[in-house]
């Protein structure tokens, strides 16, 4: 065992980075005799608990985790920024402020999707830069990737991270197949270094836990042969149960940073347990630097009783899945895919979906990397191909954009002509010629966005609120309104936050609020009012207080809900009565009342399962009524807008006018 002092000197802290700079930290890692560990808390939460691990739990073990001596803790980025606002009801930037105050000796790491930031499709460059600047004060390590390994998609983030004096960690997404050779990846690393210079850490991003231990070992070796000074961070998932093997081989071949999770919460699709990684590598003669093992054990001892509150968010299917080598679903998407299968009633089709259709789609579309947003495109396409044949007929907007090359170049090959024809129709060559090519999203006017946000909030917005709004506008506004009404609810223990079925009479809770003031709550009786709402009597800090909860009028909801079949929805669309074909959120309404529209013109853009779907007019006419606005939740068959049909032959079709 190392003495505490030595371990502390090996540690890398935010303070050290602030005082001595990024290059000093990188040199320290290069010169060190051993390897460093990252606690990928964020990936564990996302892969095994549908991103639901609450700030309350993070705060609970902040002290222990801070004592562990990690190189970094990944606690932001990926889908977490979105889920913070959507389901955890915390401001993602405030979360970092709170946690960094509690963990002052630990560097925070984020996972940034390059041009897609913390979202699912490309953002304007000025938004990207603004966002990095807003998060940079609390995030020392920036792990950045692009799902096509297309370097230009990552450049604005690279530049801002460097400008903020933070550690830049560009990633190469890893997958398997004939195209995925060491030579290809070594070349890709070279492309990155050309842009970034040598002061980086390179991440091998194995988001699905693909390949064998030997494969990863070879890859690390090949990269280091070409770039011997490079610091390699291996990031893997334990989906097939063998990420410890891959991690060990990565370190044995020269990787300096590897990942793990707290064993009390490790599942099947996220990182392997840290302690097992440490012990295994110790036997091979590799020492974990700066690590205080007892603190890792203490963390899990404290975490263990919390796990029961998160049971609902573990995957519908528990257990390692070696078939990941076939379907290549990333750890972060496995749980949600099964959830969707259960909700969509096609669970029985999952073996076919995962072992036949999904791998087939992957090869057909170019065998690039199944990671956000590519993983959603692959998955949605596979589901549509199986549930709504013929294959590729129900292509969503994101697949179209991808095939048009708007998201970047295909790394190996582009899909076959037949697939283009299935997606775009017989005129596909013209469409590709006309609309194809890499598309840079135009900058938005930030002042206009701010004014829109302030109008929606009916108050001034802070700079950070604007940044969050630009990520996920509707969810951010909903969250800000939630916080105004319910306060900083993230301090509530999971036993309250996730409670199902109501509390027991006289059940008592004590907890501090976000400002440190201790409160007590006792559950009292409840009474239904004549209007159908409910009054609950709570004893709040020893004072009885009746609290009114307004209930949705069940009757109204039922009456409004008309289940329509796809055929009926299509028939209504012919008559100009535009109904929602899917369950989702209205993302944009590009038309307004009184607008003339042509067949083929986009009327409404809906977002579902993180994908955008266009609702297109099938007739020429005039918009007479718009019934929804951005942010509205719609169900299948809900009325969206009404188009009054133009007389036959009055105007040409949308496509015709474009010629």
């Amino acid at each position, binding site marked *: 065992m190392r003495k505490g002092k030595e371990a502390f000197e090996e540690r890398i802290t935010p303070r050290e980075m602030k005082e001595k700079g990024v290059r000093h930290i990188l040199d320290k890692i290069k010169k060190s005799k051993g390897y460093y560990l990252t606690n990928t808390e964020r990936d564990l939460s996302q892969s095994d608990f549908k991103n*639901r691990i609450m700030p309350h739990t993070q705060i609970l073990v902040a002290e222990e985790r801070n004592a562990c001596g990690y190189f970094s803790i990944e606690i932001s980025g990926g889908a977490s920024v979105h889920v913070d606002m959507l*389901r*955890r*009801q915390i401001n993602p930037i405030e979360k970092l402020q709170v946690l960094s105050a509690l963990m002052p000796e630990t560097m925070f790491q984020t996972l940034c999707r390059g041009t897609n930031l913390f979202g699912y499709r490309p953002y304007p460059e000025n938004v990207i830069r603004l966002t990095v600047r807003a998060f940079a004060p609390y995030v020392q390590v920036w792990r950045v990737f692009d799902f096509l390994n297309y370097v230009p998609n990552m450049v604005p983030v690279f530049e801002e991270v460097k400008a903020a004096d933070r550690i830049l960690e560009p990633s190469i997404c890893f997958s398997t197949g004939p195209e995925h050779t060491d030579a290809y990846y070594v070349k890709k690393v070279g492309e990155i270094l050309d842009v970034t210079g040598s002061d980086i850490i390179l991440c091998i991003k194995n988001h699905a836990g693909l390949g064998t231990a030997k494969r990863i070992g070879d890859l690390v070796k090949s990269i280091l042969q070409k770039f011997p000074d490079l610091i390699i961070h291996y990031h893997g998932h334990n989906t097939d149960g063998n990420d410890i093997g891959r991690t060990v081989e990565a370190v044995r071949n020269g990787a300096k940073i590897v990942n793990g999770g707290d064993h009390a919460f490790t599942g099947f699709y996220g990182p392997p347990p840290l302690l097992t990684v440490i012990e295994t590598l110790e036997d091979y003669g590799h020492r974990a630097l700066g690590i205080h093992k007892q603190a890792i054990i203490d963390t899990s001892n404290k975490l263990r009783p919390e796990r029961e509150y998160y049971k*609902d968010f573990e995957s519908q299917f528990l257990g390692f899945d070696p078939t990941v080598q076939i379907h290549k679903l990333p750890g972060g998407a496995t749980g949600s895919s099964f959830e969707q299968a259960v909700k969509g009633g096609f669970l029985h089709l999952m073996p076919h979906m995962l072992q036949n259709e999904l791998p087939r789609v992957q090869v057909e579309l170019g065998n690039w990397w199944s990671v956000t947003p590519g993983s959603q495109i692959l998955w949605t396409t596979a589901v549509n191909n199986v549930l709504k044949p013929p294959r590729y007929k129900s292509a969503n907007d994101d697949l179209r954009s991808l095939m048009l090359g708007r998201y970047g170049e295909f790394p190996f090959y582009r899909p076959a002509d037949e697939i283009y024809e299935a997606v775009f129709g017989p005129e596909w060559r013209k469409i590709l010629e006309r609309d194809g090519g890499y598309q840079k999203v135009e900058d938005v006017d930030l002042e206009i966005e701010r004014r829109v946000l302030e109008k929606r909030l009916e108050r001034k917005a802070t700079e950070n609120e604007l940044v969050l709004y630009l990520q996920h506008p509707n969810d951010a506004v909903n969250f800000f309104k*939630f916080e105004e*009404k*319910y*306060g*900083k*609810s993230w*301090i*509530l223990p999971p036993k*309250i*936050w*996730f*409670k*199902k*079925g*109501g*509390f027991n009479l006289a059940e008592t*809770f004590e907890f501090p*609020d*976000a*400002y440190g*003031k201790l*409160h007590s*709550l006792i*559950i009292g009786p*409840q009474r239904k*009012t*004549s*209007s159908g*709402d*409910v*009054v*609950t009597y*709570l004893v*709040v*800090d020893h004072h009885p*207080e*009746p*609290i*009114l*909860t307004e*209930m949705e009028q069940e009757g109204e909801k039922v009456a409004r809900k008309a289940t329509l079949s796809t055929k009926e929805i299509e028939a209504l669309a012919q008559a100009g009565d535009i109904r929602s074909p899917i369950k989702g959120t209205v993302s944009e309404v590009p038309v307004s009342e009184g607008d003339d529209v042509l067949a083929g013109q986009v009327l409404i853009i809906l977002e579902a399962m993180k994908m955008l779907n266009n609702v297109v007019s099938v007739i020429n006419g005039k918009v007479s009524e718009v019934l929804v606005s951005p942010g509205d939740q719609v169900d299948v068959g809900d009325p969206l807008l009404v188009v009054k049909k133009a007389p036959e032959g009055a105007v040409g079709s949308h496509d015709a006018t474009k010629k």
Partner: protein
Amino acid sequence: MKKMRQIKKILIANRGEIAVRIMRTAKELGIGAVSVYEKPDSEAYFIRLADEAILIGDGPRKDYLDIERQIWAARKSGADAIHPGYGFLAENPEFPAACERAGIIFVGPPQGVIRALGDKVVAREMMKKAGIPFIPGTGNLSHGEKGIKEAMEFGQKNGYPIMLKASLGGGGRGIRKVEGKSDLMVQLPLARTEARSAFGDESIYVEKCITAPRHVEIQILADQHGNIIHLGSRDCSIQRRHQKLLEIAPADLPPTVRQAMCEAAIAAARQAGYVNAGTVEFLVDSETNEYWFMEVNTRLQVEHTVTEELTGVDIVREQIRIAEGHEIDIPAERVQLHGKAIQVRINAEDPKNHFMPEGGKTVEVYQSPGGPGIRLDGIVYQGYKIPTEYDSLMVKMTVRGYDWEQTIDRLKRALLGFLIVGPKTTIPFYLSICDEPDFKKGKFDTGYIETHPGIFDYPEVEREIAKLAKLVAEIHVKKINPFAY
């Protein structure tokens, strides 16, 4: 000498809290109480308290304003008297006239008195004769362009600002302040339109505006035998757009001034041949305590409660006894005026949003304060729905204390004792006034609300724990946290 006529059954031609107030005294006197109501009031609290309730129409408001319906209801129920309350028909001289024709006792002044005092121009002439100081003003303005010219001449002579007043207005309604010549052109036609719709008569007169005066009024009682007494003063300076918000008894004035005003009020009543309960209103200069006659309210006032609490006299009981022909039997030495009383109107309104009524909302929880010095005159109960058809007054609270300081402490304690869940209320606004330094020092005039905008800055931000409790209740009630799943 009028003959005595005992009232056996009284019809209350009104609704809401004043109907309740009158019924309470009727019950104490052993007189049967008949309520009338319009359809939207079918569930109202006041009709539950009545011995009989008679539906007079679909309303809203028009049937309460319909004299024939009241007389019809009185006949139908066999009531031998009608009490008009305040508002609606209370100051309409046609009402006592109709009662007289029907042989029903009207609990209020004779029609001639109401008519004379109701016409502000006639009233001013009357007060001139009685030697009571009054504010410079005009008679009724001529119609059209000529009227504007008359008002302009007055403004030229006496200086702006001036007040435009509806001759038949009252209770703060039908008054407009005009800052200058150009303003006058705009305001006068508006004032006329307003007067026509509110009082059915578009006569307007002009008065010099006394800037930031105090509003002090004297409660008087006069019987049919020529006895007139006063029950002391009330300060109703705290107003919003001429609507009283908070009333205090007695007014804080040097004893000599107060005495002079009381005597002037009695002289005014005598000059008018006044009978029954009435109020003589004065404006008082905040600096010099100079006072001017403003008007006589020929009815029971909303704020009569403060006088009752201070003197122990039941004004409604006296009204009925006077109407029966009794002589006032209250020796001056029994009219004690010790301590302080304050009345606040707890309305279902949002003070921050121009006192917008919260009509349509339901009072889900209602708990009221009690203990020493608290009086409640209300119609609210758990489950009460704030009407959209009528006013939003839920309950008047009158507190009585030993002195100013103790009364404010008590008012604050009592306001905090309310628990009202559902609509927004004026309670936080009154609490804000209780903490305002000028109010605490007793320094306020009719400009108080305008010059103290800070009282609207009471925190609406709930305590953090109150917000969290709301969420916990929602997780409990919905049996799942809709924001987590």
